[in-house]
């Protein structure tokens, strides 16, 4: 075997081992590196009240209610498997809307209501011009639009 073949085998073996180690580490991180808890994670794993977390999911349609004080909103967050109620006081981002993705920072209170201190809108992977919007969302109710 020539020296360069030895080096090739050595380098490839090292590369395979490295990538394997990287992937193993990444998959071990799976839950730790998650940016937010989905409602189903909360249900199955349990999050103690008062622990600061991020809760992510879709805002349930027709669940958004504005309280009498005008700055507090109530809405439900779902991931299709579980749904949790949430409350937020303040200015929501422009893209926050029913049926859209949301990541809320905050903590659960004793009764299981998520008290959000900050809201981030999560954008999905779909991009389309405004004329096409109706074609995708025709059946569903057109509630608050993100754009004027």
């Amino acid at each position: 075997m020539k020296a360069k073949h030895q080096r090739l085998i050595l380098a490839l073996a090292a590369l395979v081992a490295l990538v394997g180690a990287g992937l193993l580490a990444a998959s071990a991180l799976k839950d730790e590196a998650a940016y937010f808890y989905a409602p189903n994670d909360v249900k199955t794993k349990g999050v103690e009240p008062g622990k600061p977390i991020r809760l992510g999911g879709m805002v349930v349609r027709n669940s958004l209610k504005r309280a009498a004080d005008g700055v507090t909103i109530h809405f439900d967050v779902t991931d299709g498997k579980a749904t949790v109620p949430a409350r937020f006081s303040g200015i929501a981002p422009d893209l926050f809307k029913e049926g859209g993705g949301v990541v809320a920072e905050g903590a659960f209170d004793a009764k299981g209501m998520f008290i959000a201190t900050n809201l981030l809108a999560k954008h999905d992977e779909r991009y389309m011009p405004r004329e096409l919007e109706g074609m995708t969302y025709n059946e569903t109710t057109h509630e608050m639009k993100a754009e004027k």
Partner: protein
Amino acid sequence: MPYWRWSVGPATDAILMHRFANPARFLKIARPLTGWLFWPGLLLLLSGAAVGLFVTPADYLQGQTVRILYIHVPAAWLGMGGWSGIAIAALMQLVWRHPLAAIAGRAIAAPGALFTAICLMTGSIWGRPTWGTWWEWDGRMTSMLVLFFLYLGYIALANASARQGQQGGVSNVTAIFGLVGAVNIPIINRSVVWWNSLHQGPSITLRGSSIDGSLLWPLGFTLLGFSLLFGAIVLMRMRAILAQNKVEARMQRLARG
């Protein structure tokens, strides 16, 4: 015997890779190729950017901010592609002792870091109106930032080895660093799939695109345009390093008198 003659042997050595181990032969191709990559690249980039700014419709949800996509996506692609290039060059350097591979690795590092920085900045500017935040420590953003730091580490190592007389190339330690850093590339790619993240999932997959065609097509222009420009910059930098080598060799000869 000059260093690039090591691998240029008899007829058995006719593989393409070894043909271009000779800098003179490489330069004969690289000189005209630089222009052939640079000008079409610039033209594609400018026309794609103009179309993306003025012709394509606004997004139904993001409005005008969607247009940053035409810069952000190519920048991300070249940031990751650049490191893939460094890893391939490192493999060629370590296994075949290819002298141009060591120079290519050094040449790729700076533009790769630049495009990674552009990706991070445009993403941040887009994130503020879309998500409501400039920066969050989610899987995609964090792994991309790690890539940027890897580039900085690679550049620092490459500069250190240049001072130790690596004939314009990078040391083997730098090459090993380039190979190890490649672990981050699949992690960036999969970060939005493995972990729930603020960054959206992949829009363009093998199964198709969830970006509507009317918004998508200028992206092809800017992607190709930026890629050609990237190639041109790498060739320019490789030529500059080779020229620098020649100067240094001549200076040394003069000094020896």
